[in-house]
């Protein structure tokens, strides 16, 4: 029954055809933007292959996307102020992205990808995603009459599916997509490439310029909404970070809309110790996205995605990167429901936990924005995920969330004062990124400038890292 007997279709042979498959299925010749030993012109790629902010706003307006409300979380703010010094405790706002068609901010990314696929004359679209992006692509494809295939990593080898991913499969099928469900493993990419070759559909990757520029409207709206609600820009925006596209697009949109400095904070759920390609670890985690298992590798090695050059470059924009624990996110998800009357999915609330803690060290007249929510339902609900964790032998209890061990325990905070995000060493992450991008190359002066832009640091910083790691540089 396996296809290895089929000539030309072994994993190795399909991967050898990767670049050609990608060029046809994305319609971008990435080589055109490359220069130096390792550099590429990121801004030119975004400008030539993407759409302007105004064009995207118009596309999204026509397709049920964007203009979501910014809501003040008055009771959550009141709770945070109980743990702040007098005069401290910033106002917390949330951008209710669950109200986009298909229920998440991912509709912004899918709207541009599907519009572009239709414009280029493709018959259908394919996306490799176990997350909300699948439903987003399926929903947008439905609007354009495009066929749609979503490839998911969904089950462990015993056939037990992650409830959150099963719900996403249901949503994709509801919007008319074909859903390919796989067991755990990076060879999903091989299946994905074969499907692109077979169908000749458009690769609606999350990491093309279309996928990223679609999020710029979110950053732009945050500024506009904030000015109209409170008369000024927010001081800080917290973004749940996985592949880096949400952060990149949001920050770019903010920069295009205001000259005022807005602090950009990335937040991920700490899943340290769990291997993302492990069959047995798969159902021992309660978050299938927004976690460090994606956040850190995609930050330190952005081009590991499904296109040759990812348009998600979070280190160009991030000011601070924090992690939170699974128990804290479930706690805040419940708090959001009962204090604000807003029932949303847990994965979208990762940044809410970070904002709850960060607000406590900001002044009362400052504002912090949680830039997304996601829909909730059977499977992708904190009740469903905690129940599933217990069934898989994870101990769920009240205590100090700092003692949580991913894959073994979920520690719900004994009281909200124990909710604290941990700040990661961003310089160290930037150093890893430079090492990954520069390894095996002999760097020219233009590569050093490129790397400095990539990690938003000086050329001197890049040189220092290269010297420490014995990376060759031309004199």
């Amino acid at each position, binding site marked *: *029954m*396996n*296809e*290895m007997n089929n000539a030309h279709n*072994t*994993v190795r042979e399909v991967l050898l055809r990767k670049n050609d498959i990608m060029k046809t299925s994305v319609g971008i010749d990435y080589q055109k933007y490359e220069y130096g030993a390792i550099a590429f012109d990121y801004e030119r790629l975004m400008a030539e292959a993407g759409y302007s902010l105004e064009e995207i706003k118009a596309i999204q307006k026509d397709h049920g996307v964007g203009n979501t409300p910014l809501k003040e979380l008055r*009771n959550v703010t*009141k*709770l945070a102020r109980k743990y702040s010094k007098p005069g401290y405790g910033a106002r917390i706002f949330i951008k209710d992205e669950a109200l986009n068609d298909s229920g998440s901010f991912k509709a912004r990314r899918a709207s541009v990808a599907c519009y572009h696929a239709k414009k280029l004359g493709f018959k*259908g679209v394919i996306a490799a995603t176990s997350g909300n992006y699948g439903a987003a692509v399926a929903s947008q494809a439905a609007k354009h009459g495009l*066929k*749609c*295939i979503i490839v998911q990593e*969904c*089950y462990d*080898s015993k056939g037990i*599916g992650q409830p959150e991913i*099963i*719900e996403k*499969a*249901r949503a994709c*099928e509801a919007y008319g*997509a*074909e*859903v*390919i*469900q*796989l*067991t*755990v*493993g*990076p*060879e999903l990419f*091989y*299946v994905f490439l074969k499907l692109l070759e077979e*169908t000749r559909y458009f690769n609606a990757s999350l990491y093309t310029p279309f996928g990223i520029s679609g999020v710029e409207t979110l950053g732009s709206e945050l500024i506009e909404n904030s000015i109209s609600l409170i008369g000024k820009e927010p001081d800080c925006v917290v973004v749940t970070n996985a592949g880096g596209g949400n952060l990149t697009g949001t920050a770019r949109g903010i920069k295009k809309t205001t000259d005022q400095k807005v602090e950009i904070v990335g937040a991920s759920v700490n899943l340290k110790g769990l*291997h993302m*390609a*492990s*069959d047995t670890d798969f159902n021992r985690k309660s978050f299938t996205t927004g976690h460090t298992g994606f956040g850190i590798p995609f930050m330190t090695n952005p081009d590991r995605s499904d296109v040759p050059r990812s348009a998600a470059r979070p280190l160009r924009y991030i000011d601070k990167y924090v992690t939170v624990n699974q128990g804290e996110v479930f706690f805040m998800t*419940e*708090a959001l*429901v*009962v*204090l604000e009357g807003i029932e949303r999915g847990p994965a979208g609330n990762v940044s809410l936990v970070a904002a709850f803690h960060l607000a406590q060290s900001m002044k009362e007249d400052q504002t912090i924005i949680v830039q997304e929510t996601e829909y909730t339902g*059977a*499977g992708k609900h*904190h*009740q*469903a995920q*905690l*129940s*599933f964790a*217990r*069934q898989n032998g994870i101990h*769920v209890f*009240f205590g100090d969330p700092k003692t949580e061990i991913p894959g073994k325990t979920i520690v*719900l905070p004994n*009281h*909200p004062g124990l909710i604290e995000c941990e700040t990661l060493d961003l310089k160290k992450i930037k150093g890893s990124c430079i090492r990954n991008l520069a390894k095996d190359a002999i760097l020219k002066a233009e590569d050093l400038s490129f790397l400095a832009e990539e990690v938003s640091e000086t050329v001197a910083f890049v040189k220092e890292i290269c010297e420490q790691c014995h990376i060759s540089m031309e004199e």
Partner: protein
Amino acid sequence: MISKGTWVQIRKIVLEPNERASNVPEDTAKVPLLMWVKGRLLEDGELNAIVSVKTMTGRIEEGFLVDSSPSFRHDYGDLVPENLEIAFMVKRLVFGERNE
């Protein structure tokens, strides 16, 4: 027997354990890469037999017939009483309620 034209789910082995990528962890390397897909049954077939289906996008796929008229049964799980405790705790802190 399941009739031709029925909406079914099939499962196929994409890669045997010895054909998997070299970089997968040990536990994953021991098991095959499996795939599930749904479609319309092209000929009458039996459960667990090898059949062909036409998928939603019109592709033909072959695999073991594992489910006829497949449906979604995922839910909200068993009650997690800790959620009630969280609800009481944060409402008491914000609104001063003592109704637990």
